[in-house]
């Protein structure tokens, strides 16, 4: 166990032992801790294995009834092998500190956050592949980067009831500081200034049977990134999300879906980046059995890429998809809630092999024990 892990476990222990003194005080803090392992194997012709061990830890601390502070960080180890080539990176990630202040009659929330650069934002040549692969939106690793430098976010959210519906509207801005993403011996240090992000969100929810229907639409507009003088933007994003929860004949049913559309843009080297779209759907059944909830689930994901080749006028489209069978349960031990889950994934990944488009089989598995401790 390295020193990072020891520190994490110390924080967890202190939070877990915090006594109960009353509502909405620091002693009503909630700790979430979720060690998990995820591995994908991309078979021939890619023959690449990507795995991640992540131990995120997240603490929510209420200060009075109107202000909540949460702090989250993670230990992560990413490992990529491709034949004899190995890339690995591990360590503590950045730490996100967020504050939410509720105003008036709970209808307005002001949110502010700082991304503290406790993670490894500068990677060497041997770590680039591992640090990059976990950022894949399609494979959706729990920790998508090891560090992105100092950043600040501020925003405001407003909700209004309209009949049986609740509508939420909001906007936020994220500004990141400059940092050096690469440390390549013999090369000049490259400075990278991420563009500002402007985020707008519209959401709605409505009681539906024994549960609820939730809808959300988030638009992220990115300013131009500056990598050592190379100005580019990989494309704005539109994220649509919906979820339906209900209880049918004693079984909790959860249907959730999201769609991420990324507009076309440019890579850092000036090559065109085509549009891409990732659609994900999830169905989970919460069965009340053995004195707890057992939840089998199935999840499908599709990735549509519009590939633009420099110098070629016509673009081509390629599709990748995966399906995951999962099983999750809930175990309560005093004030500790455990959510063990496992999943197995199969799919096809579109790959470029000697300039011809083909596909590679994709398999993977994951295991997680999410732990929630609330006094």
């Amino acid at each position, binding site marked *: 166990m390295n020193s990072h892990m020891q520190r994490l476990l110390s924080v967890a222990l202190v939070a877990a032992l915090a006594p109960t003194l009353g509502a909405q005080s620091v002693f009503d803090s909630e700790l979430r801790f979720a060690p998990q392992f995820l591995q994908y194997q991309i078979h021939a012709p890619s023959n690449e294995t990507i795995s991640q061990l992540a131990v995120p830890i997240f603490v929510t601390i209420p200060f009075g009834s109107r202000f909540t502070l949460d702090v989250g960080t*993670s230990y992560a180890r990413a490992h990529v092998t491709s034949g004899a080539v190995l890339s690995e990176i591990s360590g503590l990630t950045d730490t996100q500190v967020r504050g939410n202040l509720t105003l008036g009659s709970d209808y307005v929330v002001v949110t502010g956050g700082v991304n503290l650069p406790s993670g490894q934002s500068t990677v060497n040549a041997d770590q680039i592949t591992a640090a990059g692969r976990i950022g894949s939106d399609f494979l959706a690793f729990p920790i998508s980067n090891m560090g992105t430098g100092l950043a600040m976010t501020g925003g405001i959210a407003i909700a209004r009831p309209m009949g049986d519906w609740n509508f939420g509207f909001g906007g936020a801005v994220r500004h990141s500081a400059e940092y050096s993403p690469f440390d390549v011996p013999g090369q000049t240090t490259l400075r990278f200034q991420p563009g500002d992000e402007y985020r707008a969100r519209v959401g709605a929810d409505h009681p539906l049977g024994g549960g609820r229907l939730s809808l959300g639409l988030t638009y992220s507009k990115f300013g131009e990134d500056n990598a050592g003088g190379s100005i580019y933007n990989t494309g704005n994003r539109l994220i649509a999300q919906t979820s339906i929860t209900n209880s049918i004949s004693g079984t909790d049913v959860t249907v959730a879906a999201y769609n991420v559309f990324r507009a076309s843009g440019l890579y850092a080297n000036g090559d065109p980046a085509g549009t891409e779209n990732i659609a994900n759907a999830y169905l989970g059944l919460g069965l009340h059995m053995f004195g707890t909830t057992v939840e089998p689930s199935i999840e499908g994901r599709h990735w549509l890429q519009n590939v633009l080749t420099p110098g070629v006028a016509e673009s081509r489209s390629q599709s990748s998809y995966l399906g995951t069978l999962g099983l999750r349960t809930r175990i309560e031990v005093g004030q500790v809630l455990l959510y063990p889950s496992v999943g197995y994934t199969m799919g096809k990944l579109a790959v470029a092999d000697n300039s011809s488009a083909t596909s590679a089989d994709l398999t993977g598995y994951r295991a997680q024990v999410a732990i929630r401790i609330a006094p």
Partner: protein
Amino acid sequence: MRHYQTIISTLAFASLTACATVGMTAAESVTKLEQQQRSKPNDAAVNRSLGIAYFRTERLREARTSLETSQKLDPKDGTTLLYLGLTDEALGDLPAAKAAYSSYIQVGKTSRVRGQLQSRLAALARKEIAAEAKAAVAQESSIGSQPSNPRTVAVLPLRFSGTDSTLRPLERGFADLLTTDLARSSQLTLVERSRMQALLDEIKLQTSGATDATTNVRAGKLLRAGRLVSGTINQVGAENLRVDAAVVDVPTSQVGNPTTGSDVLDQVFNLEKTIALNLFNSLGVTLTVQERNLIEQRPTRSLQAFLAYSNGLVAEDQGRYDDAGRYFNEAVRIDPGFNAAQTKGQEIRAVNAGTNVTVTTVETSLKGTSEGAVVNAVARGEPAAANTPPVNVAAAAQATAESLNPSPTGTAAASGSTSSGGGGSAPGTKDPVSSGTGSDNPTGTAKVTIVIRRP
């Protein structure tokens, strides 16, 4: 490895512990919720569920305590208010039940239950009047000695005598018209007809059905009315009516000079106006021009509609709400402009519907709703349905704020849908470097070459 062995051992122990909650009885769910309440005494959801569990096991006083605690913590929770109302009603505290139901109508989320409680409030108002009458008779010695207000007037049903029994309902109808007209004067306060009737019924019950002038005076004293209006309707021949009415001074039981009027049956409304105006003189009230103009108005010009309306009042007083509703509908059918009949019809339909509202019918309406899910979870000893987070405006604002300023670590540490109501993976957040270099793309070759062209 030792770390994982510890986790596996913990899971095995936890599974064995959790198995104890299978097939939970109502008493067991109470016990489980009591344990949760002890560890989270200030949790509104836990107190709410414990209150509902107590209510369902008929531990009403404990139910009220838990639900009141929950209400203080979350005053806008509809399920708490609903069960607080049901508990208060079961305990016989009708004013508290009415207050809780009224609050539910403001904030409750289940529209069918809101409608049921609107009706229930109308039924409870009747129940409350009857309860007040009973309490007044029980405390007659103290209430009866209190001074009455000479400006407070109660109109008693008139007594009918005649051969045509179809005219007997005019006893109530005529008294109702007089009450309406006397109430036009700002100098008088009229006792509601239903309140007067409830007291007469209670006294009648206490005295084995015997009613007389003394009974009426007793009722007047209990209502703290200074004066009563009583009288008779006599059928004269086939087509004529004679009405005699007098003001009784309640403190002295002295009957004032009677006023008399007679007319043909078809002119019953003119006859009533004559009597009403004379009564104002007897009561020493001088009307303004505006009040007089209001009194001159006729609620209807149809004798048949008025007879149907009067029949409705009789049925209402006898608690036959179905019949009363039909009579009021008949009155409106004959004279669509008969507003009093229309209002009475709506009121009676609400009372009738309200008398049929029970705990079972309310819980049936809750089925398949978010509030119903909260109630269902009580049977499992859980403070709320596992997949039903609270749906409220504050939660919508928090969800929007969460999406605007996401914490990737917070998402990664989430436990998924068995607790949070979410499901499956979450959309990734952009990593600027891997996105800009394409190193996040597993569809290319494994070797990543990063070439950044300077402008």
